[in-house]
């Protein structure tokens, strides 16, 4: 059986699956139940000065019959007294010495305040600290959370303060609500961070009630923008993860977060450079029990691939994340329809005809739509295969373009040698 244990900047975890700082890590009771279910670690719900929460806090985007494809919240950091949280952290660590407890922290931007909370969290026995520079609502209006994460200088400054007293590894949690995520990541590194985690939630307004005109989640007829997360944000998180992981100036371990629902999602994050992964929405939807399949699925996957340890997977897909100018312009694929599988719905036809390149012919046969790919018109965009409701019915097959690989960079240097591209 493959080795799933992780050494994350000195923090040893039985597996890479951690709970993200959020409602599932509100209390010691929850965290202990999570550890019993198999979670390797938990980032405690962010600690700080007491706050008051509103009632009605979440809203979601459903897709078809699937609920909560995306979730948004206007919740703040923990609303439980600091000493209660600290006592419970100590209790959890005493009972679960092998599992990881990270204290997520957010206080006002004063050195003394940060020094104090760092000492308190470490005093309770936390294995590491996560600085929440990401919360996009409420806290940011008070100069905390994303208000820090969006200004690299502030992020660097606070990380430095923390590092002055911290004895355990310091993870800086980044906000995605910024033009280029590598800037705060570099600032965290400059401030001495041992690792970064990303992403926190994305600014969003979920929906508007068509009768009351109130945005959701509705708080007495009004709402505010909130943080978006869940399966819908995974592609955004993956991109930001790859950007940070490829940045030579960051080069510290990464904990990947954002839309992870199962072991397959987790493997994708790990392949793009995450050493551990954190989960919130999927647990809010289905409970701690989902970790069983995560652990088992990852382990079986590694065994099938004959990979001895999950750490060997880390970053394996990064070399394949390239830039557009390096892609081969002479690589050519066209759509191919498996007539045996085709159910005659005509969706590929209308998609290509109205939304792509008019490369699919259609005619009525036996009351259904029979389609035919016009290979000379097909540009290989994938659209038809994406809309096709039958798995494996439309595949994209590679055809020999009869020309050697050519990138945009090379083409620009010598356009005349490749005039065929101009005709396309």
């Amino acid at each position, binding site marked *: 059986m493959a080795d799933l244990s992780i050494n994350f900047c000195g923090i040893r975890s039985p597996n890479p699956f951690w709970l993200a700082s959020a409602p599932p890590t509100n209390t010691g009771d929850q965290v202990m139940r999570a550890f019993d279910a198999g979670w390797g670690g938990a980032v405690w719900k962010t600690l700080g000065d007491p706050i008051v929460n509103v009632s009605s806090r979440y809203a979601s985007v459903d897709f078809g019959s699937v609920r909560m494809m995306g979730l948004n919240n206007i919740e703040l950091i923990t609303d439980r007294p600091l000493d209660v949280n600290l006592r419970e952290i100590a209790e959890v660590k005493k009972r679960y010495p092998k599992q990881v407890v990270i204290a997520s922290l957010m206080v006002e931007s004063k050195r003394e305040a940060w020094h104090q909370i760092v000492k308190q969290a470490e005093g309770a026995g936390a294995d590491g600290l996560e600085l929440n520079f990401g919360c996009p609502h409420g806290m940011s209006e008070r100069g905390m959370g994303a208000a820090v994460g969006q200004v690299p200088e502030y992020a660097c400054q606070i990380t430095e303060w923390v590092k002055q007293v911290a004895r355990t590894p310091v993870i800086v949690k980044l906000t995605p609500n910024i033009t280029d995520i590598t800037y705060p990541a570099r600032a965290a590194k400059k401030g001495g961070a041992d690792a970064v985690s990303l992403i926190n939630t994305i600014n969003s307004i979920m929906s508007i009630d068509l009768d009351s005109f109130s945005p959701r989640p509705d708080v007495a007829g009004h709402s505010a923008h909130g943080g978006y997360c869940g399966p819908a944000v995974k592609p955004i998180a993956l991109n930001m993860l790859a950007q940070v992981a490829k940045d030579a100036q960051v080069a510290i371990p990464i904990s990947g977060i954002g839309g992870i629902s*199962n072991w397959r999602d987790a493997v994708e994050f790990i392949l793009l450079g995450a050493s551990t992964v954190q989960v919130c929405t999927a647990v809010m939807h*289905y409970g701690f*029990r989902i970790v069983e*399949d995560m652990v*088992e*699925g990852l382990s*079986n*996957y590694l065994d099938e691939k004959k990979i001895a340890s999950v750490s060997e997977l880390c970053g394996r897909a990064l070399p394949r994340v390239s830039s557009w100018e390096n892609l081969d312009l002479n690589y050519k694929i066209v759509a191919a329809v498996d007539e045996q599988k085709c159910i005659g719905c005509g969706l590929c036809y209308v998609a290509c005809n109205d939304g792509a390149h008019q490369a699919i012919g259609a005619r009525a046969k036996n009351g259904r739509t029979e389609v035919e790919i016009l290979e000379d018109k097909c540009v290989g965009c994938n659209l038809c295969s994406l809309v096709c409701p*039958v*798995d494996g019915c439309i595949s994209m097959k590679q055809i020999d373009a009869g020309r050697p690989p050519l990138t945009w960079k090379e083409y620009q240097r010598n356009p005349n040698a490749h005039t065929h591209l101009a005709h396309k």
Partner: protein
Amino acid sequence: MEELFSEIKPALTQDEALAEANRCLSCFDAPCTRACPTHIDVPAFIKKIATGNLRGSAKTIFDANVLGASCARVCPTEVLCEGACVMHDLHARPIQIGQLQRHSTDWAMAHAMLPFTKGTRRRGKVAIIGAGPAGLACAAGLEQRGIDAVIFEAEKEGGLNTTGVADYKMTAGFSRREVAFLKQSGLTIKSGVRVGKDISLSDLERDFDAIFIGVGLGRVGKLGIAGDTLPGVVDAIDFIAALKQSHQTPVGKKVVVIGGGNTSIDAVTQALALGAEEVTLTYRRKLEEMPAYEHEVELAKKFGARFEFSLLPIRIIGEGKVQAIEFSRDDKVVRIDCDMVILATGQKPHLPFFESLPNVRIERGSVVVNEKMQTTNPKYFSGGDCVSGGKEVVNGVADGKLAAQSIAIWIEGKHG
């Protein structure tokens, strides 16, 4: 007609299984899991299909039910897991749990996965009488706990899974494959050994710490009316067992099946599948009182069976062979011409064998057990049809599993 023998429901394709798995809501403390006598964690194994973790999915199934492969085929899911699915309340089709279970367990069998692993050896040795679902599950449960188990089987390994269940649900060949699959994990079966004849109970008592009785039920037996020994009058259990061995088994042109249970329904559908022209099921009470499942009755109707109710058999008529059978209904005599009568009025218990069991209480033909599946003689445990009087395969498995747990605790206590 041969297609009536092949398993009616084709297996789900990979795409179908994925689509179906993704439809599951993943209920917490799920009604389907509660409805399953072996309490398979259904949402967990289905979620694992959705994530492509088929090995893990099969493990979740086998951890709760080592006969998960046959149960996937033979369980009356309509009244068990699928009957409890919350989709009914949404006016949607219930999740096809049986078919998904088959998807995972088929994968496991095709990929030479082991259904269970033997535990590190502990003290204790247990004799299991009968290699039916109850005996197999009990033996597997004991081996998992590190206790040696030896199964003694008089007839066919797999019990009624091999000789009873209708072919359109599961063939005898598949049942044998499943037994072989279990043997790969390390089950020991001594076949062709009838306890009480080929080996005595006292020998077993001497050589084993505990004994599990999983003998199931016996034949239907005679009706005790005139003519019931005529050629052409057959026992449903023998009839079904024979046709499961060979589809060339002789069948009459006009067949009357007596009895209103699921075995009777199976005899009807199988007689039609063998080529009988007219098959009539007769039952002594009303349709609503038939013990057979509604979905099975519907299926028999689809096969083309006729149903007659409130018919009490009085005599079978014929010279040298069956020619007709007479019933009484409301004090009138009803005669049905036929050349074959299949008796399916309920399996009889193994009474002579039960009488030879020392200090084991038998009530109304069933072995009496406590909630730990222990009989009145503490060394003897029991489960399956010989305790329940005849339920389903999955109940036998649940009993065997529970008995294994109790036997392990009992042996532990005895050895101190």
